[in-house]
């Protein structure tokens, strides 16, 4: 049965369903009990106080605790209430959880899920509450997914909760406003499988996470002018569906990457590098990145709009790529 529900509700459904199925799953976070977080509703009532743990404001310890729980046979879900809170926990994520499995030589594994809430901007949350920290964890080798829709949120979280390794689930700050069709008894969506969100023959837009919705809007607008954009959503950032990416690029030979992580060494950089390696023969124009600017997010609304990857930036980049003929300028913008 498919219903139209919210993104956070979809995460909640995934948690409730998997916690019923696997009693080793425990949710740990700050202010996670008591109904403050839509994604954590009903867990205490259904599974008791040992399955939902309220932490002091100690993100590093919280993350290390999850590693210890996992080594001892538990399956923790670590809830970061704001995306920038992975930074105080960074050593425990990068030096410990990500590295331990190999360092242990396979003696054990770490089945931990990191729910990274509040990714990206949502209007005036300013410099420390608007991060898109995906690339940091991907670079550290932590499996990562960036679901764009409620249905993907549910299906990918279910997969994360069955994965024997650490997996980060990046949840947009605007999730509270996203609704969409979700199966009541949803299947897991495998990691590493991208999806074509819209077909088109003129240009490929690769859009990450909450950028997908904007990409589809821009694609519709451009269709009115006869530019048909294929929109491809990787869904999973590590593993990345490299074959799917190459196919999406080959389908049009022109590509714009649309991503809210900071430009330099961000997710779009890795997508671009992969395309450069694999699609040399099929590219008819230089690829373009539309990303967050390499700056701290300023608070004031007119400034925020300038540095976030917006529909206007995307549209301009698409037009540039579509119009590109040999001899055009090679410098983006």
């Amino acid at each position, binding site marked *: 049965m498919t219903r139209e529900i919210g993104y956070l509700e979809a995460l909640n459904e995934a948690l409730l369903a998997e916690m019923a199925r696997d009693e080793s799953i425990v949710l740990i976070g700050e202010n996670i009990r008591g109904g403050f977080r839509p994604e954590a509703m009903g867990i205490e009532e259904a599974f008791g106080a040992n399955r939902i743990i309220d932490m002091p*404001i100690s993100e590093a310890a919280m993350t290390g605790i999850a590693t210890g729980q996992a080594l001892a046979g538990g399956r923790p879900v670590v809830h970061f209430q704001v995306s920038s809170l992975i930074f*105080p926990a960074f050593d425990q994520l990068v030096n410990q959880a990500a590295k331990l499995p190999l360092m242990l030589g396979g003696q054990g594994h770490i089945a931990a899920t990191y729910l990274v809430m509040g990714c990206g901007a949502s209007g005036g949350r300013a410099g420390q509450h608007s991060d898109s920290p995906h690339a940091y964890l991907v670079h550290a080798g932590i499996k990562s997914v960036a679901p764009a829709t409620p249905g993907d949120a549910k299906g990918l979280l279910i997969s994360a909760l069955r994965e024997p390794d650490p997996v980060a689930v990046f949840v947009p700050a605007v999730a509270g406003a996203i609704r969409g069709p979700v199966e009541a008894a949803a299947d897991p969506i495998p990691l590493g499988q991208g999806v074509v969100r819209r077909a088109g023959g003129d240009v490929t837009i690769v859009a990450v996470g909450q950028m997908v919705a904007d990409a589809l809007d821009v694609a519709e607008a451009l269709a009115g002018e006869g530019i048909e954009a294929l929109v491809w959503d990787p869904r999973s950032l590590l593993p990345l569906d490299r074959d799917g990416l190459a196919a999406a690029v080959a389908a049009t030979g022109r590509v714009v990457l649309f991503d809210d992580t900071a430009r330099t060494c961000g997710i779009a950089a890795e997508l671009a590098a992969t395309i450069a390696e694999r699609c040399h023969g099929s590219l008819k124009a230089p690829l373009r990145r539309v990303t967050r600017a390499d700056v701290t997010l*300023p608070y004031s609304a007119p400034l925020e709009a300038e540095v976030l990857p917006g529909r206007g930036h995307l549209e301009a980049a698409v037009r540039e790529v579509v119009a590109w003929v040999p001899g055009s300028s090679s410098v983006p913008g």
Partner: protein
Amino acid sequence: MIEDGNLDPTSGVALYRRMLRLRRFEERVVELLDANEIAAHAHEYVGQEAVAVGVSASLRADDVVTSTHRGHGHVLAKGADMAAMFAELMGRESGCNRGRGGSMHIADLSAGIYGANGIVGAGAPIACGAARRFRDSGQDRVAVPFFGDGAMNQGVLLESLNVAAIWRLPVVFVCENNLYAITSPISEMAAGELYERAAGFGLASEAVDGMDVLAVREAAERLIERARRGEGAGFLECRTYRFSGHFTAERGRDFGYRTAAEIEDWRRRDPLDVQARRLDGEEAWGTADRAAISAEVAAEVEAAVAQARAAPWPEPATARDHMYARTYPGLPAGPRG
């Protein structure tokens, strides 16, 4: 400089007046938020005014504070310009931070305010660094990090307690224990007394009634002057309460973590009332004085709002400014390169 109207700045009336400024400022912020003139949320300081005012009364203009997500009170009490604060919250170019910071990053370096901070506990080492620099360069300035009870469980703050103790820094940590970190009661989040935990790091540590501005000022002064003289860092736990929810978004919702009776009990200890009652008993001021102060403050607030409203927005073309003090070709990159 702190605004005391025509009052003797050392008087109890001036302390009252300062607290009232904080209260009225914050109430106005909430109205502006509801009118969409301020973006996102604000963490109301209402109820805790005795702490910011009592501590700031013991600080010199060239002393330094670091603050928190709940920072308006600290910033205003330490001497930021009210109109520049409103302008900041409204995202204007004339704001303290030229509209780049907003509520959680509001700062005024010229007034010794190194900033509100959106990351719990993060201001503590910054204050320690300033203090270290003051001492190493022969300045007798003091640094005060403000933070909440919840921050007492954050690693970097605990590290800072140790550093301040071993270096005998001119630092006084001011912990506003308002009993909750969002929904989490301190009784479930920490064992034992917070000021005793600090003492365990070797700090001179006290707890004080944080609803009584005089008590706060006296304790703060003692610790601050001690620290200034090089006799060692201090820790002051101020027992206080926030009358509002964690932040503006909590209004109209009840997460059940506090009872109405508890809130009522604490409201009876409203720091403004506590100080007013004291003044009623000790000083010659009457209803007329109180009304005059109230009117003065109201007028100041309205003038500040008007000034902020009239201020220009930042130019979009300057959106990447200030990321670096020195830029390079292509740095910082924009959304298209």
